[in-house]
């Protein structure tokens, strides 16, 4: 889009880069007899690739597969149901990131609970939830802690604030996820043939480039850390193609203005100060050992799972195929519900409602009627 202060040179540069990417992709096809496949791990990349038109412009040249990088989408149905059922207790204020509000549980959503009078509040930072706890000392404030490595340090910051202010009516229901274990699982399962990864810029900002070295050294795959503008993403795909053509496995940082070699040491320190590795259940995949973070024992007083018990029944089964979407096995339109029974207004699965979900990206930016 045109910045009113600038000339539109970005546009010409993007088109030149696009041509180069197409040329390299054609060379790959001639060499290996197939279209190269890259997985974008991050939900924000999924959205940006669709919105900028890159995904459509590369159709037939490069297959871009949405990976399990949307925190809402990968959250297991049992966990979603448990989070929603937390609203049933009296004298509770449930605080959440906005994305969670319309995610369907088996028997309702947080938005429905709110319209029925439950105290559910959208906050933009977990620290805001601590402030709400401070203002309402006679109520229990529970923050729904979902997210990847980008979010976990912010969760830690909120716990630190609650600890320093000695706030006793604040807790978090943790369901965080880590990128490395899920990538290892996907590569181990080998359900999708991949030629490389477009790595998440935000997660890499915390974890650093070297965190992803294992993709090259252990799995022999190239990977590129990318930002979110069209030029960033095209440049990253260009690097991926060049590496894949030469069959050279390297992990490249193409987002150096934001991502450091070793990441953000301070953020990692606070993550590991309050939280420890735990097993986590992933939607459509199951439990992956040590794939999330939960409170260390000494911080049980902030752990909502210890403070509150919730009862959930067996999750309601639907024909939603979000589990296959996040594993890269199908594209959203291949789900029979897509755009018919399942739309952003009436979502059946989380991939349609999250602002980082691949079904929502397809619906908003790639749907044709």
């Amino acid at each position, binding site marked *: *889009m*045109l*910045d*009113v*202060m*600038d000339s*539109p040179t970005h*546009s010409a540069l*993007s*088109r030149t880069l*696009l041509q180069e990417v197409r040329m390299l992709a054609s060379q790959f096809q001639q060499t290996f007899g197939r279209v190269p496949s890259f997985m974008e791990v991050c*939900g*924000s990349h999924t*959205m940006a690739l669709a*919105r*900028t*038109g*890159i995904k*459509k*412009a590369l159709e037939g040249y490069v297959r871009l597969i949405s990976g399990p*990088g949307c*925190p*809402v989408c990968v959250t297991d149905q049992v966990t979603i149901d448990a989070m929603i059922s937390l609203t049933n207790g009296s004298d509770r204020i449930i605080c959440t*990131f*906005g*994305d969670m*509000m*319309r995610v369907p549980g088996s028997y309702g959503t947080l*938005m*429905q609970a*709110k*319209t*029925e009078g439950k105290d559910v509040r*959208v*906050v*933009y*930072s977990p620290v*805001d939830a601590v402030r709400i706890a401070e203002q309402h000392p006679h109520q229990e404030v529970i923050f729904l802690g*979902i*997210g*990847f490595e*980008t*979010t976990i340090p912010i969760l830690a910051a909120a716990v630190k604030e609650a600890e320093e202010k000695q706030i006793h009516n604040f807790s978090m229901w943790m369901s965080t996820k880590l990128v490395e274990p899920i990538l290892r699982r996907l590569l181990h399962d080998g359900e999708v043939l991949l030629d490389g990864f477009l790595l998440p810029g*935000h*997660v890499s900002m915390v974890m650093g480039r070297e965190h992803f070295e294992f993709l090259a050294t252990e799995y022999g795959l190239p990977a590129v850390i990318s930002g*979110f503008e*069209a030029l960033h993403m095209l440049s990253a795909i260009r690097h991926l193609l060049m590496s894949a053509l030469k069959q050279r496995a390297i992990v490249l940082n193409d987002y150096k203005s934001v991502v450091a070699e070793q990441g953000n040491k301070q953020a990692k320190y606070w993550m590991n100060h309050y939280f420890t590795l735990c097993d986590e259940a992933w939607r459509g995949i199951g439990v992956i050992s040590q794939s999330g973070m939960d409170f260390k024992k000494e911080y049980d007083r902030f752990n909502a799972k210890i403070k509150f018990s919730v009862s959930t029944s067996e999750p309601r089964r639907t024909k939603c195929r979000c589990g296959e979407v996040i594993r890269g096995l199908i594209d959203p339109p291949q789900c029979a519900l897509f755009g018919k029974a399942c*739309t*952003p*207004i009436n979502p059946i699965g989380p991939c349609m*409602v999250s*602002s*980082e979900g691949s079904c929502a990206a397809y*619906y*908003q*930016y*790639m*749907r*044709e*009627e």
Partner: protein
Amino acid sequence: MERITLAHGDGGELAHKLITDVFVSMFHNDHYAKFDSATLTWGAHELAVTTDSFVVKPLFFPGGNIGKLAVAGTINDLAVVGAVPKVLTCGFIIEEGFSIRDLKTIVQSMAEEAKKANVTIVAGDTKVVERGSADGLYINTTGIGVVSRPLDRKICEGDSVIVSGSVGDHGVAILVARGELGLVSTVESDCTTLYPLISKALKASNHIRLMRDPTRGGLATTLVEICEDFGVTIELEEDRIPIKKEVEGACELLGFDPLYLANEGKVVMIVPKEDEQAILDVLRSQPEGKDAAVIGTVRATNKGQLLLRTPLGTTRRLYRLTGLMLPRIC
């Protein structure tokens, strides 16, 4: 049981569904639902009538306040149907405990904004509700204007789409002013009365087909509605749409699309290609229109689709905003 949610008030798909399913279907008057103001024949005169309620939070924001917004918004709704705004009424719902000093500031801004368009505020109503029953202050305004030159609304293939300036400014200014996102920005709301600008454009061309002020739901939702209501297909050029660097930056960070952010001081016009330059010259000669740009073309007069050509040369279809825009988690 289906209930009203906040998403029903965002000007997008759910708001559209609510209006068509409940209000239009029960008031049996779908023709008027297409326009910002209804035009009524009264003796020898054609009058335009509009009403709007303002519930913005916070009440004061960079570039304006709820009072300025209420008057400007209502005058703009009259101006975009080609009317000369004449009188306004206003109703206040005030929460117990509200500061009289703040109320005076707000009312003063209303008076100043009305003066810009030579509009008189002629009647009003005040209700005070218990503390906790309202968010400080709500304002409802009703406006009446005289239509001196009705727009013909006959959109033709090849017509140009013009926007009077950068989009998304109000949306970002409000998000930042709420202080919930931890963002610091210098973006001010574009909130202003557009009548003086629009009247000059109407003098520059006798053939402006249609005008709208792209408020809630943003430029994209407003143009989707025009495409559907009039059955025309419009193709926008993404790299010609003016967007301020700060607005684009905030959107990148939060995962928002500036095309869906609210504007309160912009007008979008559909004009014949041959009148495009004359209208642009007039708009750009005024401070409110200095960044005016031709952003698209009417491609066909069937189908009713809004398309966006990206800088990469691909085209995608734009739809109404679906659900609330919320910042991403990661």
